[in-house]
């Protein structure tokens, strides 16, 4: 950044290019061809109701919203999720989840609807069975009506328990596709830079501006936290321990690849509505190697301020701790064949504060209301 003062409001052309890569925002959420309920108003209404409905759990005491709490960035504020027992991983936030291709810290789900099935079936979470979900869906007249409207009359009358459960998951996915946050102060900067409005650019806080320069420059953060959603959607090992205790490890992406390949609900399987199976291309081609061990998904940084604590195991309590992790990264803890790009950033305290200030400007100013419907209603469609 020769010739540019650290807190100068003018961005260089390289910095402008780097900023431009993180927009525009919002991004369109494309309909999921594997989910015939995607974008369907009745599927969305059913998914919204199910998201808050504890009847989906086998004991009737836990819903999706138990852990994905609207007031906590659709996460839970815990280091590790609390189901029937304390789980091994941090609850991921759900804002903008519809933009992803892999789901979960290990990417063991290749669609948003198969992602929704995991906590439903996990005995340590909702602990339901296909028959239980089918009973909930079929036993509530409004749910049955919404399902018939969304997924078709024929499917409604001849469906197996598995199919009923998948329809519930597809409705949940259709609802989650609507969880898109609005513009953040960073997006406003992106837009005014594109318009060449220097006065408006100067409104972006000086500390965040300095942090942005580190993020997009010598920090190399944008290599993985790439694009409008600040994630390349893939998996990396960054020196966070994967030991879970005596004799237990979290294999991360390695386990995720094995799981998604074995999953009968994956995008190559019979439950996908995409007849071409083109949406399953990632699943078809994903390759497993020993570097996948201990890799975890690169999370989006949008609204990251709302979802502390951080990392797959919630080990880092604050954004300042996350920045410190990268600043003082222990190269000895990284895989020998890991990402050669990772080096300790050796930030000063002031630089670390600036980077945190930048990350806070990724918090959206507007969010759609996420609340349960008072009582779902449905008019049957002919």
């Amino acid at each position: 950044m020769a010739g540019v003062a650290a807190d100068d409001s003018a961005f260089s052309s390289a910095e402008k290019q780097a900023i431009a890569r993180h927009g525009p925002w919002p991004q369109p959420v494309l309909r999921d061809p594997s989910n015939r309920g995607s974008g369907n108003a009745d599927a969305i209404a059913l998914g919204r109701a199910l998201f808050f409905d504890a009847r989906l759990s086998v004991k009737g005491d836990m819903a999706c919203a138990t852990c994905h709490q609207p007031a906590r960035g659709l996460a839970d504020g815990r280091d590790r999720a609390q189901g029937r027992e304390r789980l091994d991983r941090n609850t991921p936030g759900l804002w903008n989840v519809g933009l992803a291709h892999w789901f979960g810290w290990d990417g063991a789900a290749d669609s948003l609807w198969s992602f929704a099935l995991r906590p439903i079936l996990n005995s340590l979470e909702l602990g339901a069975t296909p028959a239980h979900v089918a009973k909930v869906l079929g036993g509530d007249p409004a749910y049955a009506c919404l399902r018939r409207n969304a997924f078709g009359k024929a499917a409604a009358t001849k469906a197996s328990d598995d199919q009923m459960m998948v329809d519930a998951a597809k409705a949940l996915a259709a609802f989650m596709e609507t969880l898109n946050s609005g513009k953040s102060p960073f997006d406003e900067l992106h837009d005014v830079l594109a318009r060449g409005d220097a006065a408006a650019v100067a409104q972006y806080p000086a500390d965040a501006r300095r942090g942005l320069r580190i993020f997009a420059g010598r920090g190399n953060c944008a290599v993985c936290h790439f694009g409008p959603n600040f994630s390349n959607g893939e998996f990396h090992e960054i020196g966070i321990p994967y030991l879970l205790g005596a004799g237990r490890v979290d294999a991360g992406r390695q386990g995720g690849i094995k799981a998604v390949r074995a999953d009968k609900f994956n995008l190559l399987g019979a439950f996908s509505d995409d007849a071409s199976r083109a949406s399953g291309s990632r699943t078809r081609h994903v390759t497993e190697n020993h570097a996948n061990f201990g890799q975890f998904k690169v999370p989006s940084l949008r609204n990251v301020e709302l979802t502390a604590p951080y990392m797959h195991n919630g080990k880092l309590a604050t954004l300042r701790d996350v920045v410190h992790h990268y600043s003082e990264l222990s190269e000895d803890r990284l895989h020998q064949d890991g990402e050669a790009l990772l080096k300790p950033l050796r930030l000063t305290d002031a630089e670390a504060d600036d980077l945190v200030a930048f990350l806070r400007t990724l918090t959206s100013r507007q969010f759609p209301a996420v609340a349960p419907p008072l009582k779902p209603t449905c008019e049957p469609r002919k």
Partner: protein
Amino acid sequence: MKRPHLNQALVVAALPILAGSGLAWADCEATAGARRVEGRDVVLAFKTRPAKIKVGELFAVDVTVCPKKGTVKGVAVDASMPEHKHGMNYKPTVKKNATEGFTATGMMFHMPGRWQFAFEVDSTAGRERLLDTVAVD
């Protein structure tokens, strides 16, 4: 990136030798949007679909291989980031096309930066590895 180009006179002189191989060197001359790599035994031209590679998005590569001698039996396609010391997270599938060439599907570059394509060509003249580097942003 500077790429080698065949001397046109050499191409013309070589054509008779290629009779029976199906493709002549001219088929691997640079065409719109294609990149060209010359090796010991073969010349190779390739195009990506879509033409602009987007970080994190799957793409395909259409490959034409023109042997200087012998016939081509097959091609394997891979890519890596030499500076980062890692390859792709996806393994492409290569199929022979009806029109002599090959198509690799399931390619994906998951980071911006310098990526190196690697084409392993198996021909009756032997096995040869051809490299070409592109910048992705």
